[in-house]
């Protein structure tokens, strides 16, 4: 259960973020909005990777479904935001449930490749269903309620939504269900012996991950006022996977730091050099060769209390 100091620390972070627009920098507000969205996206994937031990190569699918569905409902069908957003999230969750049903029958690399196959199918639909999604021109001109059209208004909306989303994920990951997932990750056979239906648990985790991925996607689409097929492509899945691994998969907050570090680094690098891939490649080499447990693992090591980080929050 949440320790008091965690709650206090989280409240302080949210409060400090809420004060950010007072600094008056539009750039800082926009960048933070993006980081918040990616943080939620990365956290949702980590339910599957860190907590359940299943690597998905196709998480962008649910991000795209959430984003496109919200965009289409808001713009084409003129639904109010209060209906579009939940509907988009539910749709992403439903698709994740259907896809997950097939994927959790497999493990390891076969699981990963099946998630990739489904995700590329989603990409294909976004690409070819031109009447609805706009095809490779993207879906542009998303209609937003007046109060969200200003960047500060949207920032507060994102902050509130992401805070609720992260809190929900925190509760899920630290509930009996979340602990069962860790048991499945650590030793699926033994978890099975004590009566855990491991496949059903992985299925549930898949659905949760897809649902919150869809929420992140909806926020992303509205922020950019458009969704593009690149958002559904496998490179986007790889990107969020790197965020999760960079932050550290064995900690709840790790992916938040990974998302922030990667997105900020990418933004700043692109200002100075076109060689972002080289920079990212070198970062990955450092993770692989020096920091296998991510930034959080590094912090833990620097504090000299390494060794029991697995499965801790």
């Amino acid at each position, binding site marked *: 259960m949440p320790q008091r100091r965690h709650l206090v620390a989280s409240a302080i972070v949210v409060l400090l973020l809420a004060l950010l627009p007072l600094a008056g920098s539009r750039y800082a507000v926009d960048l933070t909005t993006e980081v918040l969205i990616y943080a939620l996206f990365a956290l949702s994937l980590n339910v599957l990777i860190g907590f359940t031990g299943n*690597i998905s190569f196709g998480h962008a699918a649910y991000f795209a479904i959430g984003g496109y569905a919200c965009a289409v409902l808001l713009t084409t069908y003129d639904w109010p935001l209060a209906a579009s957003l939940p509907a988009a999230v539910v749709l992403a969750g439903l698709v994740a449930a259907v896809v997950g049903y*097939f994927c959790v*029958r*497999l*493990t*390891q*690399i*076969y699981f990963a*490749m*099946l998630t*990739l*196959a*489904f995700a*590329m*199918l989603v*990409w*294909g639909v976004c*690409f*070819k269903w031109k009447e609805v999604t706009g095809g490779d021109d993207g879906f542009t001109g998303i209609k937003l309620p007046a109060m969200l059209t200003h960047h500060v208004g949207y920032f507060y909306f994102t902050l509130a939504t992401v805070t609720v989303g992260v809190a929900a994920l925190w509760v899920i990951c630290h509930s009996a269900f979340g602990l069962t997932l860790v048991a499945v990750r650590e030793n699926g056979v033994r978890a099975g012996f004590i009566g855990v239906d491991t496949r059903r648990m992985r299925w549930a985790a898949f659905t949760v991950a897809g649902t919150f991925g869809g929420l992140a996607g909806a926020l992303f689409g509205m922020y950019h006022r458009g969704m593009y097929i690149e958002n559904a492509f*496998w*490179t986007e899945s*790889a990107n969020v996977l*790197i965020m999760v*691994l960079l932050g550290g998969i064995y900690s709840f907050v790790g992916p938040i730091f990974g998302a922030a570090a990667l997105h900020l680094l990418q933004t700043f690098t692109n200002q100075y050099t076109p*060689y972002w*891939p*080289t920079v*990212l*490649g*070198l970062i*990955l*080499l450092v*993770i*692989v*060769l020096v920091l*296998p447990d991510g930034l959080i693992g590094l912090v833990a090591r620097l504090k000299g209390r390494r060794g029991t980080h697995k499965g801790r929050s």
Partner: protein
Amino acid sequence: MTMTMFTLNAFYGLALAMNMFIIASGLNLIFGVLRVINFAHGMFYMFGAYIVFTVAKTWGAPFFVGVLAAAAGLAIIALVIERLLLRHLYDKEHLMQLLFTFALVLLMSDAAKMIWGTDQYSVGYPPGLGGAVNLGFVVLPQYQLFLCVVGPAIAIAMWLLVDRTRWGRIVRAATQDREMLAALGVNVPMVYAAVFTIGSALAGVGGALAAPRVALVPGMDATIINECFIIVIIGGLGNLWGSFLGALAFGFVVQFGTIWAPNWQDVLPYVLMLVVLITRPWGLLGHPEAGH
């Protein structure tokens, strides 16, 4: 569809399948022995194609000298990568190996941009293989015919190497029990290095042979690596003939898909993988334990 059109398309599908098999078989060999999923394999393919462009077109050497140069070049690159970096990662988690090869993709893509720029290049058919063969009811292009000979030849050569030689026995033993093999006095790290080198050289050859068929552009690696994964996965990971079968299925699906469902050709290979994985989770010729 007339008989002629059908034959021609089946033939183009076969040629595509054979070219893809040459590339995918390298990926498959590396996975089968090293248990490493090499994301950089597509990049090796791209380097193979670019090397043939430089050697055959810029320097004016014969096309097949370019193919040999591509094989040798990729073998050297792979050997250096394996000895310097990859060998430290065999005991780490799969995820770490995967990230490592993804880092290679990023670094090599920028290196390729620095060496060859971002222009689109093409390589012509080699002299003597640019024509066509008339079979009476259908006219087949020579270069594709050539691919249909090289593909099975490489498949048989690999089968002989792995299944019929002493070195092949050692390689197969390495997939079963590394430690026992080392205890028997075999230099296992050298076996691993050799397998990675051969597998990567196959990507180079595959890229070099694909060069006359495709446009050479940055990003040509990204589709190929996914297609190779599809082939290797539907065949059964680590299974040579599975990859051959997978490549055939891939080639025909893509070729006939282009005609019957032209809008969906990019997605069809994924649909193929989906159908196979749902009906036969370990691939056409794979076994359940292959996933571990």
